[in-house]
């Protein structure tokens, strides 16, 4: 287990470094950052001044390592727009995104795992068809459009939930539904097929031959095996959700990191954009690392090598 953990950890660090390099290279994607910063009317002297000021005149590798080291210490530089440290901005905005992400993945899991299990227990039943319908619709519906539809419904027709802002938990209800529904189809499908496969397996037949009651067979013997791949998927989906939160946050005007990133993209505020990309990526890396460990704990074939 220790060797396994160390291996995963090493891989995670390597991925994190690569991602940070890619993120850093965003700076140069738009051409010379000094020129874009100085504006089109700037003189050569202005540009040179900016290059010196921000260190753009040094070799890229040096710049990268400096940036990465600072980022590692939690220093992402200063926002071009707000003129305050990016880290402060992030600390203020991240909790909102995290709250949204956690509530959305919880919503998705609470909806999709029971539905997937029930659907697998009675294939082709009404419930199975309902589950299939939910997943087919969920896969095809653009989330930004679903969000707008909910806004129309709950702002105009039945004004129950607020549609903008992030002050209270009520503000998170609609965004949670939209973002959670986005992750539901994949998790539900995997739960259903996994459960079907497990229920048809020889060891479930053994469990039945032992005369175990139905709930023990389902929850002890079947679900644990069926849920192993679902854990990884849920972690992946959680990561995707943070990325997807940019759309949802901007529609519901939730002041999270996604909304910040969207605004900053519009303002060409590169340090902020880079920081958000990097933080979201790192979060995903940590998540998948944790889900690998959880998987190993659930599946003795990994744990006890």
């Amino acid at each position, binding site marked *: 287990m220790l060797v396994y953990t160390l291996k995963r950890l090493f891989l995670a660090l390597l991925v994190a470094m690569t991602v940070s390099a890619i993120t850093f290279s965003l700076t140069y994607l738009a051409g010379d950052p000094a020129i874009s910063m100085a504006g089109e009317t700037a003189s050569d002297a202005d540009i040179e001044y900016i290059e010196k000021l921000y260190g753009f005149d040094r070799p890229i590798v040096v710049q990268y390592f400096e940036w990465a080291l600072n980022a590692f210490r939690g220093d992402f530089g200063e926002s071009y727009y707000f003129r305050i440290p990016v880290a402060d901005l992030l600390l203020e905005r991240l909790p909102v995104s995290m709250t949204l992400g956690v509530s959305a993945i919880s919503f998705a899991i609470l909806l999709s795992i029971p539905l997937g299990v029930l659907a697998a227990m009675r294939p082709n039943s009404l419930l199975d068809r309902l589950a299939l319908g939910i997943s087919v619709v969920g*896969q095809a519906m653009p989330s930004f459009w679903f969000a707008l539809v909910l806004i129309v419904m709950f702002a105009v027709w039945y004004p129950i939930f607020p549609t903008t802002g992030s002050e209270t938990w009520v503000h998170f209800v609609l965004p949670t539904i939209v973002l959670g529904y986005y992750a539901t189809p994949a998790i539900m499908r995997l739960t259903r097929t996994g459960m079907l496969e497990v229920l048809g397996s020889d060891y479930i037949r053994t469990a039945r031959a032992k005369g175990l009651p139905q709930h023990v067979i389902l929850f002890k013997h079947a679900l644990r095996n069926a849920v192993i791949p679902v854990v990884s998927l849920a972690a992946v989906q959680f990561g995707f959700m943070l990325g997807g939160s940019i*759309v949802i946050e901007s529609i519901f005007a939730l002041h999270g990191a996604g909304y910040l990133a969207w605004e900053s*993209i519009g303002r060409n505020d590169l340090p902020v954009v880079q920081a958000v990309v990097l933080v979201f990526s790192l979060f995903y890396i940590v998540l998948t690392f944790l889900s690998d460990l959880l998987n190993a704990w659930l599946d003795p074939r990994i744990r006890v090598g």
Partner: protein
Amino acid sequence: MTTTIANRGLPAAEDIVGPTPGQQLRRRIFGHRGLMIGGGILVIMFLMALTAPFLAPHDPYFQELLARVKPPVWTTGEWKHVLGTDQLGRDYLSRIMYGAQISLLIGFAAAFISGVIGTTLGVAAGYFGGRVDMVVTFLITVRLSMPVVLVALAVVALIGGSLTVVISVLGLLLWDRYAVVMRSATMQIRQMDYVAAAKAVGCSTPRILLTEIMPNIMNNLIVVATLEMAHAILLEAALSFLGMGVQPPLPSWGLMVSEGKDYILFEAWMITIPGVALFLLVLAINLVGDGIRDVTAPENRN
């Protein structure tokens, strides 16, 4: 003594004359409700995109400023603008028809680019294994840890939004699922006896990849391609909706939803129509993808 192996009126399993494989396949295709519905919608969308230049009632860019935000005909609108007009007085039906071109073009082109990248990586990893596999798996992990929407938004914003840029960015970002699926499919096929046989008779690696591996992972490839096509269409719509995708005045459906969102409280149809169009197109592609998977691998159903 001689043994008689005459059937003596006992039918063996082989004697029950079943439909030929071709008939079976046809029966599966036409008996698959999802595939039929999805295929039907997809054909209509294609026809809409192809015939837009001839059948669209108006120029999708012509602004009739005196006829702005006209509702569609089933509410209080007129037959002149069946689906109404947008905030600049442009005919909604014509824009929806031309919008189908954009969505389909982006879907196909992005799925093709990412398909080439992902399949190459996946097949290489699956076939060669070892170091190649390690590198590809690493690349997949790196790619998966980058938030797609955010990176796509940032890149499009930095380079500037145009159809080509959006297609390229999506094509370069969405190859991960191809690589994952093709890798495991290739690994399975590689262990088959017929691949060993091909190696034994001295076939070259490219030849084995082309004639032994590719035909057997084609089903998977097509299924992933449909998924990614749907994914690309949704992403383009989201990017355009956020203003960092296809730029106005192009009639992208996502852009139409975005332009209509200021009117949602009173003119909900303005977002409903392009939204439903998007939903139907993506639904159709997904249904076709699921259908192909079911039809080509009936043993995988349920």
